[in-house]
């Protein structure tokens, strides 16, 4: 029986085949998945904000893209993955409420997505699939037996990326 491991907001989990890692209800947050297709190990990170240096204070590095991603890379490698083989998929980064005078904080989804890609690139990890933006929430899960990343929405069905 394959495990279903839940990943909460501002948290990450790593695991190996045949587990599935799942994170519910992402809005402007991003679900970043990492996967080593040979070792079949991977991780899922649910970040809320792009940049920990702009935050006033926090004890939780998994809340931010710039600190959360390196942390998850380490843990996935510790589970047996080879860093050079890791591939990433990302989803989320929506703008949930449309305001005509949207402030920067309302557009945090876009910044989240950009920063995730930058941090991954800086770590030499390729983003092979992406489903970001829009105005709707997503539930994401990664099946560690094959690396398939499922993105589920309420009105727009679900897809594997």
């Amino acid at each position, binding site marked *: 029986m394959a495990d279903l491991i839940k990943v*909460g907001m501002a948290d990450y989990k790593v695991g190996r085949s045949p587990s599935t890692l799942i994170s519910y*209800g*992402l809005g402007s947050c991003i679900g970043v998945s990492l996967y080593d297709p040979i070792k079949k190990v991977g991780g899922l990170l649910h970040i809320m904000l792009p940049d920990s240096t702009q935050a006033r204070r*926090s004890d939780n590095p998994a*809340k931010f893209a710039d600190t959360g991603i390196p942390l998850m890379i380490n843990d996935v490698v510790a589970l047996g993955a080879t860093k050079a083989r890791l591939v990433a998929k990302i989803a989320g980064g929506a703008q*949930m409420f449309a305001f005509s005078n949207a402030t920067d*904080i309302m557009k945090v989804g876009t910044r989240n997505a950009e920063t995730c890609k930058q941090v991954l690139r800086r770590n030499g990890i390729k983003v092979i699939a992406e489903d970001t933006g829009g105005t709707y929430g997503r539930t994401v899960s990664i099946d560690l037996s094959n690396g398939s990343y499922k993105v589920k929405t*309420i009105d727009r069905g679900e897809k594997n990326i």
Partner: protein
Amino acid sequence: MIDEEFNLTPNQLDALREIGNVGAGNSATALSQIINKKIDMNVPKVSLIPIEEVPDLVGGPDAIIVAIFLRVYGKAPGNILFLMPKKNAFFLVDDLMGRPHGTTQSLDEMDESALKEIGNILTGSYLNSFFHFTNISMIPSIPSIAIDMAGAILNVVLVQLGQMGDHAMVIETKFLAEDDSVNGHFFLVPDPGALSTLVKAVGVE
């Protein structure tokens, strides 16, 4: 570590609860007059919770809800959210439009506009109470509406709080009508810093 500004004394918590109570009372009365039904409400909860647990207050991050969101401007800025399970929101629309319960299956522009107006009215009556007790005027934005997963919707406010700390202070009231046409959670989530402004203005130690 809990951020210092959340260190409220029991008296200050009581004061916030009381202001919230009067505000929610105003809101419930207004709503009751619009749909001509009796509305019950609970005594507001003022609670400090870890940010990642906030979605659990409304049925978990993947529960489908209808949310009306208003930003509050002024010296004590914050966010207001009125959250309803989808079914109850549709009942409320039916009541507002004078249709039998169960008619609404999806929201058209008119329905959304009606719900936003409810958000406006609830917020206006609610914030009145804050002005009355604190003399700080809190000016709401125009409302915005979304139907989606609770986690995704709450992201909007949690992200702002998340920039400052790891906890959220929420003032929460539940509204309930006997026939399920209203079943909603009304949240005021003050921005970091706004809470101490409010408490100081009340003058309670």
